[in-house]
């Protein structure tokens, strides 16, 4: 899609875990600017852990994370949004006792995004018209689909160059899921690079350029999204065909 | 992890320090003292300690007891009853003292009674006035100060001699000391024909007693009888002015209202708010007993201020202990208790002799704060000054 010199995001030989439990053994992947890339894998394969390592919530025990040519492996979570990475975590993780607007505002908390918070809010409300109606409502009282919209919009408030999306369809009806994915596609069209973790393999891959398959903390396969969708092993393992 | 270790280490250190009870080396005679050196009653505990110290120096200057120097092992009960009991256990079980003096307050002293009774070690009570300390009936407890009934009797007789007011309000802290004194006053005053129009216990150490005082004020008592420690006595008097509470006689069961600091205007006292208040008293520097003046001088030299009766009681208690040990010629608790029962000793605090229940019959007089000083105003034959009915706050300036 673009002709950037190197990849926007590059993971090389990442190992990570929780206490004594090692979740990632060797993760290497890259995301080029403007791409939508999907991580596929079974529950517990290490997809979410990979996103957490990128966003600084979990420190890698080995390997490097490079973003836009800079080593960000050792950066703490709170320093990541300022670099241009937004992480929309699994399960929405909204601030339930704050209004939609307050939630969105916190998305632009970091110093780089703050000056443009006002304009960013208008952008998000235009992108998600439903949220405009609900802007003064407490986030905890919204429906699941609306909450997911808030979570994504909050991530976009930082005007990120890379958006990490963890299971955006989790718990949503097929109709709402479709809508969410349509929005993600829109976001990609606006030039935001997206790395998405999705259990719903067909939906995920069908809006993506490329995909990586993770098993037991290792990348076992990767390729163009369309090619993966046709792959027999993938169809057998993840699509039940 | 670090903070846990720190905390653990601290615990180990403090427990270790607590366990390191000194064993007597046989070169001294030891007695134990429990008093409140820290906590809310520390002002009185320090007065105790000064009294004991003066007595100890006197005793040892005269050659000690049974040819050996007397040694006092202090235990600070932190103004808490459970700590006072701990003190008894520690002094007897670890330091092996055959005689204990203390504590300061009624709450703590009452808690110590079963502990000494169980271990069969005599206890000399210097200052605690609650009647239930003696009513427990322990043969090991000997009290040199007057109890709350004696306080109530003297106050009632004083009132009878001064126009016999009819209505009485009781305001007292909700502790053994306060309840015991209020109950005694209620009994004695009712028997004398007075009506108790308000009976108000309170939570000690509160910042605000105005509602309580308003409530009592509405009953319009002629007399109010307080049983309070110093902190609350000061607050109560200040806030009496605020709510314009004007009984004709502001009387009290001593303690806070008789503390040396109470009528002073330092940061501790009530200053001008203390003026005209009456209090029971067990001793004044001007008391007629031999040694009163000398003790007053020694105390003033040590601390720079005059003693209240609590210090004198501690002083007399240790002199009594030395007398008893000399007569018992033994460090066995039983022999010491026997000697206590046969006591006949003149002290600066007056003569000490115990009745069958272990109580010393000590006379109780009444003082009034006049021009910032405690003046003996009752009984009439020894009075320094005439009692003055308490004027209304609005008439004072």
């Amino acid at each position, binding site marked *: 899609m673009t002709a950037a010199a190197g990849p926007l995001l590059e993971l090389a030989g990442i190992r990570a875990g929780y206490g004594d439990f090692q979740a990632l053994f060797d993760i290497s992947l890259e995301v080029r600017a403007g791409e939508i890339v999907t991580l596929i894998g079974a529950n517990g394969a290490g997809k979410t852990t990979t996103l957490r390592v990128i966003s600084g919530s979990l420190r890698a025990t080995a390997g490097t994370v490079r973003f836009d040519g800079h080593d960000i492996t050792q950066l703490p979570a709170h320093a990541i949004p300022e670099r241009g990475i937004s992480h929309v975590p699994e399960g929405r993780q909204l601030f339930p006792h704050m209004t939609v607007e307050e939630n969105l505002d916190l998305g632009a908390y970091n110093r780089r995004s703050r000056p443009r918070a006002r304009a960013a809010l208008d952008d998000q409300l235009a992108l998600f018209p439903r949220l405009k109606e609900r802007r003064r409502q407490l986030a905890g009282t919204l429906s699941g689909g609306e909450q997911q919209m808030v979570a994504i919009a909050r991530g976009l408030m930082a005007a990120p160059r890379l958006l990490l999306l963890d299971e955006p369809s989790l718990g949503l009806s097929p109709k709402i899921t479709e809508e969410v994915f349509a929005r993600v596609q829109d976001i990609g069209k606006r030039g935001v690079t997206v790395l998405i973790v999705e259990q719903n393999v067909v939906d995920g891959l069908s809006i993506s350029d490329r995909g990586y398959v993770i098993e037991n903390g290792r990348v076992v396969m990767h390729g163009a999204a369309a090619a993966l969708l046709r792959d027999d092993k993938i169809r057998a393992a993840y699509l039940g065909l | 992890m670090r903070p846990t270790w720190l905390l653990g280490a601290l615990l180990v250190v403090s427990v270790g320090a607590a366990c390191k009870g000194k064993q007597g080396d046989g070169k001294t005679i030891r007695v134990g003292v429990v008093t409140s050196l820290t906590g809310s009653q520390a002002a009185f505990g320090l007065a105790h300690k000064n009294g004991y110290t003066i007595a100890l120096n006197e005793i040892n200057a005269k050659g000690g007891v049974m040819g050996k120097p007397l040694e006092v092992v202090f235990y600070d009960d932190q103004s808490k009853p459970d700590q006072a009991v701990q003190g008894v256990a520690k002094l007897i079980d670890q330091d092996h003292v055959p005689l204990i003096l203390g504590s300061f307050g009624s709450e703590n002293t009452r808690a110590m009674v079963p502990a000494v009774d169980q271990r069969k070690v005599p206890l000399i009570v210097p200052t605690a006035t609650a009647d239930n300390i003696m009513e427990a009936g322990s043969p090991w407890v000997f009290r040199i100060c007057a109890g709350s009934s004696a306080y109530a009797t003297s106050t009632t007789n004083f009132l009878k001699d001064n126009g016999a007011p009819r209505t009485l309000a009781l305001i007292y802290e909700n502790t053994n000391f306060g309840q015991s004194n209020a109950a005694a006053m209620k009994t004695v005053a009712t028997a004398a024909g007075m009506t108790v129009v308000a009976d108000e216990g309170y939570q000690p150490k*509160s910042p605000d007693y105005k509602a309580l005082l308003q409530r009592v004020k*509405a009953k319009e008592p002629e007399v109010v009888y307080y049983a309070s420690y110093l*902190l609350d006595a000061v607050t109560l008097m200040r806030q009496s002015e605020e709510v314009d509470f004007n009984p004709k006689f502001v009387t009290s069961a001593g303690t806070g209202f008789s503390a040396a600091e109470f009528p002073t205007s330092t940061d501790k006292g009530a200053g001008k708010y203390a003026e005209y208040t009456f209090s029971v008293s067990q001793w004044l520097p001007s008391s007629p007993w031999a040694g009163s003046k000398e003790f007053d001088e020694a105390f003033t030299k040590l601390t720079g201020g005059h003693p209240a009766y609590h210090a004198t009681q501690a002083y007399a208690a240790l002199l009594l202990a030395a007398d008893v040990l000399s007569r018992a010629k033994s460090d066995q608790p039983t022999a010491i208790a026997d000697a206590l029962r046969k006591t006949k000793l003149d002290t600066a605090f007056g003569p000490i002799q115990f009745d069958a229940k272990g109580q010393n019959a000590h006379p109780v007089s009444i003082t009034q704060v006049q021009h910032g000083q405690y003046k003996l105003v009752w009984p009439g034959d020894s009075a320094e000054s005439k009692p003055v009915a308490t004027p209304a706050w609005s008439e004072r300036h």
Partner: protein
Amino acid sequence: MEFTLRALQAVLNGLLTGSLYALIGMGMALIFGVMRIVNFAHGAFLMVGMYATYMLYDHLHVTPYVGFLVAAALLLGIGVLTYHGLLRWVAERSHFMQILLTLGIALILTGGAQLVFGADYHKANLPLLDVNLHLGRHITINAPWLLSFAITVVLATGMFLFVMKSRFGRALRAIAQNRYAASLMGIHVVRTEALAFGLGLAAVGFAGGLLLPVFYLYPTVGDEFTGKAFVIVVLGGMGSIEGAAVAGVVLGVIESLTSLYWGNEWALTVDFAIFLGVLSLRPSGLFGSQRV
């Protein structure tokens, strides 16, 4: 008439005391709301604030009405240091560890105060204490209480606005509601929590300074306030600072009315009856469970 006026006076007194309770309770609610730690050293820190104000008054003749600002600044600093030195390390541990730690801090502070200042108590006898304002014949207000009340209202309102409206306050609330998401927003959780703990202590610094003129001071003076603050936090809805503000005032008024109509000795009993009642009937507090 007389009856109504007496009740009115009691309510007024309750408001005056309650405003200080509110400030103390708001500090504890802030700490609890953000960190989920019940600060059992709250009263001990109040005591530190009182001693700081007293020392300034006694040695340098600084009035407590200026001194309380210094006490608050001091406690803010102590709070940040305590967080970094101790609390931070138990943030993810069991509640038992946290209770043990804050109780330990309380013991060390109280013991330290006894060593440094002695167990004896002190009072700042300001000339202002002798000033009473009379409203009609029956209503009296003691000037220092009124002044403390006025300052407390300003501080409590300021604290509320700061937490609800400012950028930093929004970050605090974000941590309280979702610590993980807060860090993803770029909020420096550790630094913000340290400041939150500092602010919670600054509230007792303010309160301590304002309490000094109307109360007395000794090393264990704070113990009772820890209990009251805890009651207020539960009553206000665990961790809601506006709930704590209202609960503090309510508690002050209830205590005062209890004292007037039922007797002072019941005040503490009523406190704890309310506490147990709220816990068993409405565990989310009288005013809902909205966190900070």
